[in-house]
């Protein structure tokens, strides 16, 4: 598998690649991952670092990509050193390791597309140049109906929908932080809180309203960003109610999800899936989120979580107030969330991905040329793959 983004930076695609790799290994397959990273960083043993990443503004954030002669060399060597059955590339149309690997590939290629926003004009312009390389893709996967729609409408391909996986037991058994859950109510926020599209300003405005009637309400914040700037933005009234834990890693995130009464995801756009929602659902934490298409899908139209008008502090504060005052409803939502998250557990998702690998191998032109009958799987676990 090739991950285009640096593993040193947290992100949905990175988490997906590592989670899928572990899920596949759990099913008995041999997996190798190539990703931008420097040697010496603490990486799982199945990861090969491919050099330092450079921040490139992309899709509303800064993407840590590696693209250049060093990356090409590392990719070439990695492909040569391993005899993969299948090459699984993530976001191969971004100028990244995935695109490099695609250009070098000589075996079945499965490509996963994570994003639902239409890409930069530069890529659209380069579409003609990229097309011969993109024709090497055998099978496409999209993590949501939205990401798939982008494939169909803009990028000239269709894709199988396989949702992002989540490590259900990891989040379900996490212990709350000391002192939590606490009386008075705690709302959680997980994500890059300095990035406008993640919606922190909306949440702060909503909390200002709530603070009048709920004096003991606290906001627990986890993620990358400038805590000082956040406290300044919150103002004196709210700053005392903020607890900013910063970037705490997966364990910290799981503990926070187990500690809060409600997770709030007030993002205002640019979301293709919303992994943090599925993580909260796995943890049994009720979710209040903006009514973005992606979130509506994940929260099952509002049955597994509460949806509020995007960008409306008034609606958000009303929804939070209702939910914080209704413990029974929180329990019911938590149960619905857990049931839904179970369908996204990594072993379940990994099996679906293996079905795509098997189809890609069956559709391998080299197999046709060699006169070998198409591979037909006899059942789950009957064949061990080497995906790379």
């Amino acid at each position, binding site marked *: 598998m090739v991950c285009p983004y640096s593993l040193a930076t947290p992100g949905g695609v990175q988490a997906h690649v590592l989670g899928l790799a572990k899920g596949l290994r759990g099913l008995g397959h041999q997996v190798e991952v190539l990703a931008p990273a420097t040697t010496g960083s603490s990486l799982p043993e199945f990861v090969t670092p491919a050099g330092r990443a450079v921040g490139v503004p992309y899709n509303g954030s800064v993407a840590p990509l590696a693209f250049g002669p060093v990356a090409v060399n590392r990719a070439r060597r990695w492909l040569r050193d391993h005899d993969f059955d299948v090459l699984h590339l993530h976001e191969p149309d971004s100028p990244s390791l995935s695109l490099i690997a695609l250009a070098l590939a000589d075996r079945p290629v499965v490509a996963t597309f994570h994003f639902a926003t239409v890409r930069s004009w530069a890529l659209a312009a380069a579409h003609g140049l990229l097309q*011969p390389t993109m024709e090497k893709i*055998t099978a*496409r996967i999209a993590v949501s*109906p939205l990401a798939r729609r982008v494939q169909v409408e803009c990028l000239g391909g269709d894709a199988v929908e396989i949702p992002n996986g989540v490590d259900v037991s990891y989040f379900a058994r996490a212990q709350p932080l000391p002192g939590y859950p606490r009386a008075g109510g705690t709302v959680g926020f997980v994500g890059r809180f300095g990035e406008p599209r993640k919606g922190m300003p909306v949440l702060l405005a909503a909390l200002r309203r709530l603070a009048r009637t709920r004096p003991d309400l606290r906001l627990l914040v986890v993620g990358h960003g400038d805590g000082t700037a956040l406290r300044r933005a919150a103002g004196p009234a709210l700053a005392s109610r903020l607890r900013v834990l910063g970037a705490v890693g997966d364990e910290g995130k799981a503990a926070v999800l187990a500690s809060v009464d409600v997770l709030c995801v007030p993002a205002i756009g640019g979301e293709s899936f919303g992994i943090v929602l599925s993580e909260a659902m796995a943890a049994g934490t009720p979710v209040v989120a903006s009514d973005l298409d992606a979130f509506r899908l994940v929260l099952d139209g509002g049955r597994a979580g509460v949806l509020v008008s995007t960008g409306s502090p008034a609606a958000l504060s009303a929804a939070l107030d209702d939910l914080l005052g209704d413990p029974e409803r929180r329990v019911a939502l938590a149960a619905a969330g857990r049931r839904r998250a179970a369908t996204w557990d990594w072993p379940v998702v990994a099996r679906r991905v293996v079905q*795509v690998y098997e189809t*890609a191998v*069956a559709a*391998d032109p080299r197999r*046709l040329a060699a006169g070998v009958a198409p591979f037909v799987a006899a059942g789950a676990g009957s064949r061990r793959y080497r995906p790379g």
Partner: protein
Amino acid sequence: MAVTVGLLVLGAGAVGAMRAATRLDRLHVRTDAAWAALDAALCRRARVVRGAEGSAALRRAVDAALLAGSDAALRTGAAGREEVENELGRVLAILDRRGLEPARAGRLADAEQRVVIARRVYNDAVRDTLALRSHRMVRWLRLAGTAAAPRYFEIAEPESSHDGLELDGAGA
């Protein structure tokens, strides 16, 4: 001077044409291989259905003539195949799976999912091939030769392929 420029242009054109021809060749092979995989997936689905002959529910739902028809279509090729496979898909969609034993129901669902994947893979290959064949240069120079244009394989997909994430209203 004009001759040099003319030769350069011709040379560039020839290189472009050769590249397009190679690409087209690769795409035709890719499409053939994808069809082989789709064919295998459809056959597997039919086999799982046939293999479930012990299941009274499935026997009631699936007409023996339908299965015989799919055998015949296998021999005749793609044209009649869509119709037969669509019919099988339609029958399977309205089948009450609770009447099947779990292992069999699981195998059936697995076979149906693989048909969906194989169809995407095949249609993607067809789309890329048709896109290249429609380029002006390819048409004028008749780079596609006598190879027939591939056709999409259009069958209805089972709803479960959306895995619990459904767009309200129109399907994706």
